[in-house]
């Protein structure tokens, strides 16, 4: 794109109409706003919602909502949604929609995108056959996936693999069928294809290459039941997703007599104008420079060019970067630049053991980088992609294996860092230096870099580090360290008291921020009872009284009920205790029973009764592992495939009492129906025919998030080991009060990185994590039992130090629905 930009409000056009509301249309109207366009803008969209981030579509199945993906609608834009344009009357300069609405225009912009290509095979219209393009498609796929056990994706390209991984995530046995002799035939060559196949199969996907779909057959219910391949092979599957390429949606232009390409696409010039000067075409429906572009980056650039032209500018579209990186969990594949250039030298590296394949293309004098392919390890992609067409800063092997840090310094200002949004290294440096961006979020907000596919975020971090920006990490005025750093200090220096830590590493005497955080670190590292010695003074009131404070200064009592399983006898004890102490009784969301309204001096007597009856602390008061919720599972449920209750109890007993940066909730479901809602938990386990799927980083509450699939089909032993390490790694590295969801989202390298560290042991710390968890498990004692046995600790459980037997007179109750309810004295004294 050349860079002339029009001034505010210039251009004769007053009424701009856009047909189609996808990412290209969105960028177009947004850009018009940025350029100060002051005419009327109307967008006519076929889908029922404003434009959303299609690149991130798959995250919708991972828990993102439609709202999360939707772009904010720029101001001053009128949108008609769910009403496609059906005709363009060029003579009258009017478009007509399906509902009969007529919209006059001075400038019309076609941004109708493309439609998935569905090969003409018999059975392709059966119920259970889907495409993968819109939120509605994904809703339909998710719904169907709930009723079947296996699925077939037709097409082994970038999108096909992404869709296949999504089906796997929905719990289906998944097959990928690709006509070519290898996966991703457009991006990788044979060598890369072979390595890629092994990675994909290792994820549990079945790959069928060199085979087309012959026909799709229905079962007795009339829906898809099996797919027959050209070689005669039959795959039993109830769901088919077509991902065999896309075709430009050029039908409006065709019908209006505008020239289209031989293989589709609306012909446009450099300025994105069609043969009719009043009509532009942008995005995937346009044929620019003889090519239809199927990546969001070029589509957005086209949108910017058209906006500039509409405002009277002279910007031009001159082709685009076709680099791609597969967003497939656990498999790194990337290609960039030209991948089979004429007369180029190539450097190939193959490590079949590690499953790594690299191929770089350089000019015949071996000085200029032309393109490359990375499979199995795409770390070099980040550094190499911006260098395409430039002189190499080192030998090809150094670039591939010398790590990425060294090269980032030398990235020229005009090198593109974010290809989705066309943001250069210089733009990011300016955002840091001149616009005061000091973290990734600010850079994203300022420049848009990293807001689409996210693959450039590590590069943004590096640029930030290189420019010397110190990320604010101090926990409070007393410690200049982050929680993770303090954890390491305490661990490595074997510090066992707050006094020593603050004397050596802090200033002042601490506060309500650092004291509980350090108390939690000391507890995570196994420093005995949380009320022992000096530790007692660090705890907040909940941990101090081993109960949860309520609004009137009373406390609640929540005994552990592992997995939510309880005998009638124990249930009766709970009822009796609640009755005898006059406590309000409620069932919690985590399958336990909450007894509320206890005064501090009542807590020991209540707990004495409970401990005698075999109960122990439920740690509802602690930043600790809370419960492992479960469904009834295979023991009773006719759908269950594993004993979810047994597993939940085993996990809860293993991790009970484990102190962490924040509370940790978990659940186990006995089959894919997910009755225990495990994906809303910090770690969730869902039974499969072959074992357990482990999901991590879920959350309910204030900011709901579905957990991400970390590993599939684990044995009992593998499951426990993986959770051990997940928890310990989180405890080591998270910030204060950071839930696993937020921690995971901010973990550099995300889920892939987590897998590397805790499954592949890339940092070599797994043995240590395992040992730490072992210490926790063997060192566990029930905090309430230990407290009852220690008269020193019991002495604190009084309302008044000078009148231990006097109940707090400020605590009074009234009765509501046959139970107590606090009476609060009005807040007259505040202000």
């Amino acid at each position, binding site marked *: 794109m050349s860079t002339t930009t029009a001034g505010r409000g210039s251009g004769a056009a007053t009424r701009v109409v856009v047909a189609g509301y996808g990412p290209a249309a969105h960028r177009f109207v947004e850009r018009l706003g940025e350029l100060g366009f002051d005419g009327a803008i109307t967008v006519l969209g076929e889908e029922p919602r404003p434009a959303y981030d299609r690149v991130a579509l798959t995250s919708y199945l991972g828990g993102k909502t439609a709202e999360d993906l939707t772009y904010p609608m720029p101001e001053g834009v009128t949108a008609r949604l769910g009403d496609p344009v059906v005709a363009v009357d060029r003579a009258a300069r009017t478009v007509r929609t399906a509902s009969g609405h007529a919209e006059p225009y001075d400038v019309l912009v076609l941004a109708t995108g493309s439609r998935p290509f569905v090969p003409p095979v018999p059975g392709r219209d059966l119920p259970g056959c889907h495409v993968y393009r819109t939120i509605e498609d994904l809703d339909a796929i998710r719904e169907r996936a709930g009723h079947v056990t296996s699925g077939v994706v037709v097409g082994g390209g970038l999108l096909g693999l992404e869709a296949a991984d999504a089906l796997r995530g929905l719990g289906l046995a998944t097959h990928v069928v690709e006509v070519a002799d290898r996966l991703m035939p457009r991006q990788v060559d044979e060598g890369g294809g072979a390595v890629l196949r092994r990675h994909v199969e290792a994820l549990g996907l079945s790959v069928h290459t060199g085979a087309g779909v012959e026909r799709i057959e229905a079962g007795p219910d009339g829906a898809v039941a099996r797919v027959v391949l050209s070689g005669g092979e039959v795959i039993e599957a109830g769901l088919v997703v077509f991902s065999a390429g896309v075709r430009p949606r050029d039908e409006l232009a065709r019908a209006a007599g505008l020239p289209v390409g031989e293989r589709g696409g609306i012909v446009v010039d450099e300025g994105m104008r069609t043969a009719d000067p009043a009509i532009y075409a942008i995005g995937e429906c346009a044929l620019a420079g003889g090519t239809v572009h199927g990546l969001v980056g070029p589509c957005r650039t086209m949108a910017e060019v058209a906006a500039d032209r509409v405002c009277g500018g002279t910007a031009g579209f001159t082709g685009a970067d076709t680099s791609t990186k597969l967003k497939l969990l656990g498999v790194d594949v990337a290609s960039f630049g030209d991948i089979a250039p004429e007369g180029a030298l190539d450097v190939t590296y193959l490590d079949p053991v590690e499953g790594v394949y690299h191929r770089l293309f350089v000019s015949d004098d071996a000085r200029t980088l032309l393109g490359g392919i990375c499979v199995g390890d795409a770390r070099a992609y980040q550094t190499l992609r911006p260098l395409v067409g430039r002189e190499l800063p080192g030998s090809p092997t150094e670039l591939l294996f010398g790590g990425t840090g060294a090269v980032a310094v030398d990235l020229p200002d005009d090198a593109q860092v974010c290809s989705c949004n066309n943001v250069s290294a210089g733009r990011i440096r300016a955002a840091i230096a001149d616009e005061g961006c000091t973290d990734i979020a600010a850079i994203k907000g300022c420049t848009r870099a990293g807001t689409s596919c996210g693959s450039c975020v590590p590069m943004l971090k590096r640029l930030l580090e290189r420019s010397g920006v110190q990320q604010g990490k101090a926990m409070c*005025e*007393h410690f200049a360290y982050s929680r993770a750093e303090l954890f390491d200090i305490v661990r490595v220096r074997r510090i066992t008291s707050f*006094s020593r830590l603050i004397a050596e590493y802090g200033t*002042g*005497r*601490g*506060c*309500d921020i*650092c*004291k*509980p955080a350090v108390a939690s670190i000391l507890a995570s590292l196994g420093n005995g009872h949380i009320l022992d010695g*000096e530790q*007692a*003074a*660090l705890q*907040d*009131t*909940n941990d*101090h*009284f081993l109960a949860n*404070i309520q*609004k*009137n*200064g009373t406390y609640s009592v929540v005994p552990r009920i592992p997995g939510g399983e309880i005998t009638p006898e124990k249930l009766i004890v709970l009822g009796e205790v609640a009755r005898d102490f006059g406590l309000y009784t409620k069932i919690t969301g985590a399958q336990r029973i909450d007894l509320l309204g206890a005064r501090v001096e009542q807590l020991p007597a209540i707990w004495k009764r409970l401990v005698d009856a075999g109960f122990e602390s439920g740690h509802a008061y602690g930043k600790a592992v809370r419960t492992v919720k479960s469904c009834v599972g295979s023991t009773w449920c006719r759908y269950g495939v594993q004993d979810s209750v047994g597993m939940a109890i085993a996990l809860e007993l293993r991790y009970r009492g484990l102190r962490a940066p924040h509370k940790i909730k978990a659940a186990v479901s006995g089959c894919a129906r997910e009755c225990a809602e495990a994906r809303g938990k910090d770690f969730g386990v869902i039974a499969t025919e072959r074992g357990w799927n482990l999901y991590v980083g879920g959350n309910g509450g204030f900011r709901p998030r579905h957990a991400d699939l970390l590993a599939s089909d684990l044995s009992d032993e593998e499951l426990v080991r993986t959770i051990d390490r997940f928890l310990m790694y989180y405890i080591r590295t998270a910030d204060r009060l950071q839930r696993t969801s937020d921690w995971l989202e901010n973990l550099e390298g995300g889920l892939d990185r987590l897998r590397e560290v805790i499954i592949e042991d890339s940092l070599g710390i797994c043995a240590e994590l395992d040992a730490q968890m072992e210490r926790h498990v063997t060192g566990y004692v029930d905090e309430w039992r230990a407290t009852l046995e220690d008269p020193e600790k019991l*002495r*604190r459980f009084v*309302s*008044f*130090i*000078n*009148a231990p037997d*006097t109940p*707090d*007179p*400020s605590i009074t109750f009234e009765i509501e629905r046959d139970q107590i309810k606090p009476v*609060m*004295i*009005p*807040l007259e*004294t*505040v*202000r």
Partner: protein
Amino acid sequence: MTVSHLEASHLEASRLEAPELATPPTATATGTAVRGRVRTWTPVCAYTDLLPERGACALVDGHQIAIFRTFDGALYAIGNRDPFSGAYVLSRGIVGTRRGEPTVASPMYKQVFSLVSGVCLDDPEVSVPVYAIRLNDGVVEVGR
């Protein structure tokens, strides 16, 4: 007016620098700090009953008074009622310092109060009463 912290520290020869830290409470603009003479001293507990860096509550003539023993051995007394929640809980908050000033954070909504002046450091228009406190032969006494 008796200045409690001085007396507490006098007993602890090693902590003579404490008084600088704990300037005597005087009447403040909001009028909530200790005014006038203490008429009666009520013994509430042994000094050793108090944990360092932690509070406890004493009931004196029907008034709930939160008393604190800080790391340096000094004693402080403020009203136990948290003005933000209305609950009588300040004695159960976390004790610490803010720019050198001894504080307690309400366990309810975490506002931080000065143990010296009773003023809420997060919202200086709000404060809690401050009471006199002293150590008398190993016994902690609260003055009203």
